[in-house]
C-alpha cells in the first residue's frame, strides 16, 4: 500500500461547529488527505472555507468529530495537543500567538529548545552559555539584528520580527510536519518576503 510510507494521512475527517443549533457550521466533511515525506502542499480557499479548521484538527486544538488522523504511522486522532505538538511545527495567522510577550527572546527560544530534550532532568536545567551562543547564531540568520536584543522581552518586537522568531522556534527541532497558517497575512510586503524566504530555507 502506498499509504504505508505516507507522513500524514487523514481519512473521512469531519468537524461540525455548534452542532444542533442555528449556528451549525460544517467546516470539514469527510476529508481525505495523504502527504508523503518532503511533500509541499498549499491549501487555497476563500475566507471561512475551513483551512484553519483543518490545521487545528491536525495540531489538536480540538478533536475531529469522526475520522482518522495518522502522522508518521501513528494514530494521533485523540492524542492531546501538547503530546502531538512535539513533532508538529505550527505558525499561527496571528503573529502575537506564537511567542510569550513578557519573556525575553532568549527565554522564548529556550522554551522551543525544550522540545529537543526528552530526559526529565532537563526540566531543572538552566539556559547554558553554549545554548545562548547557538540561539545567537540562529538569530543572526534572520538578518534582523535580533541577535543583539536577546535580553529584551519579545513584546517589544514588531509583528514581522515576532513571526520570523516563531518560524525559527518552530523549526529548531526538525518537525515531522510544518503547518503555516497564512503566516504572512499580518505582515508588510517586505517583511513578508523575508519570512517567506526563511520558509524556503
Amino acid at each position, binding site marked *: 500500500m502506498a499509504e504505508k510510507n505516507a507522513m500524514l494521512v487523514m481519512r473521512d475527517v469531519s468537524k461540525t461547529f455548534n452542532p444542533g443549533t442555528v449556528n451549525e457550521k460544517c467546516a470539514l466533511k469527510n476529508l481525505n488527505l495523504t502527504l508523503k515525506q518532503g511533500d509541499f502542499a498549499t491549501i487555497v480557499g476563500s475566507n471561512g472555507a475551513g483551512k484553519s479548521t483543518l490545521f487545528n484538527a491536525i*495540531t489538536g486544538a480540538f478533536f475531529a468529530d469522526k475520522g482518522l488522523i495518522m502522522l508518521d504511522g501513528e494514530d494521533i486522532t485523540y492524542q492531546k*495537543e501538547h503530546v502531538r505538538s512535539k513533532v508538529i511545527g505550527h505558525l499561527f495567522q496571528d503573529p502575537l500567538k506564537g511567542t510569550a510577550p513578557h519573556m525575553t527572546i532568549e527565554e522564548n527560544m529556550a*522554551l522551543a529548545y*525544550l522540545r529537543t530534550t526528552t530526559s526529565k532532568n532537563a526540566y531543572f536545567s538552566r539556559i547554558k552559555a553554549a545554548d545562548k551562543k547557538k540561539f545567537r547564531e540562529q538569530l543572526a540568520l534572520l538578518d534582523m539584528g535580533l541577535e543583539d536584543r536577546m535580553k529584551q522581552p519579545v513584546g517589544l518586537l514588531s509583528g514581522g520580527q515576532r513571526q520570523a522568531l516563531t518560524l525559527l522556534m518552530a523549526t529548531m527541532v526538525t518537525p515531522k510536519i510544518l503547518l503555516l497558517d497564512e503566516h504572512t497575512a499580518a505582515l508588510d510586503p517586505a517583511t513578508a518576503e523575508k519570512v517567506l524566504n526563511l520558509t524556503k530555507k
Partner: protein
Amino acid sequence: MGSIITLSIVQSALELGFIYALVALALFISFSILNIADLSTDGCFTLGCAVCASVTLAGHPILGLFAAMAAGVCSGFVTAFLQTKMGIQSILAGIIVNTGLYTINIAVMGFASNMNLFNCESVFTWAKTAIGGTWYKLIVAALIVIIVGVLISFFLNTRLGLSIRATGDNPDMVRASSINTSAMITIGLCVANALTGLSGGLLAQYQKSCDINLGTGMVTIALASLIIGESIIGKGGMLQRVTGVILGSCLYRFIVAVALRLNVPAECLKLVSAIIVAVAIAFPYLKKQMNFYRQKRAAKAQNQIYVQEIMKNDSEGGER
C-alpha cells in the same frame, strides 16, 4: 518623625514584613506569573498556621514548618485539580477550596477555633537561646525568606520555571511547544500554596498562637505587598522582581505600623489595608492619566491655531 517611627516599630514591621512576604511571593507566582487569581490563599494561610501549630505543639518545630508547606501543596493541588481536570473556573475553584478549608482548619486544630503555643519550643525560641539579643526573630524570618526568595528566582529560570511563566503569558504558544499547560498550572499552584502554608506556619510560631480567622483578608494584604513591590522595583529579572515583592511586603508593614502609631483603632486596620491596596493599584494608572491630560492641554493651544488655518484656507478656496 522620630517620635512616630521608633526602632522597635521598625523591627516588628520588618519581622512581620518578612513573614508575610512569603504569601506575597505565593501571589507573585499565581497572580503575576500564572495569571490566576488564587482566592484559596486565605484558607491556605490558616491551614499552614493550624498544621504547623499542631505539629509544633507535639514538639517538632522544624517538622511543623515542612508540614505546613506540605499542607499548602495539597491545598494548591486540589485548587489546580478543580481548574484543570474538572473544568471549574479558576476564581470559583479558589473560593470552593477556601470554603472547604474552613472546616478542615477547625478539624486540624482539634475542633477548636484557636490554639496556644505558649511554653512550647519553636524555631524562634531556639534562636533566642542560640543568638540572644533582641534581633533573633528578625534574623530567623529574614534568613528563611531570603533562602526561599533565592530558590524561587532560581527555579523560575529553569526550563520548568520558563514553561510555567510562558503558561501564564501565552497558553497557545505553550501548547504548540508541546508543554502540558495543566501540569504547569498544577506545579505553579502547588509551589505558590507551599509558600502560603510556610508563611502561616512561621506566623503560628512567631505569635505562639493560631486562630481560625487569621487568614481573613490575606489575599488583599499579599496583593498590596505585591503591587507596592512591583511599582517600586518595576519589571526586570526574576531575582529583581522577587526582591521587589519582599521589599513591598516590608513597606506595607511600615505603612500599617505608622497608621497604628497615628492612633488608628485596630478595628479599622482592614479598611486601612483596603485603602492602601486601592491606592497602590490605582497610582500607576492615575499617573499615566495625569500625563495624558497634561499632554492634551499642551496640544490644545497649538491645535486651535492649526484648525483656524485650515478653516481660513477652506473659505479662501471657496471664493476662488
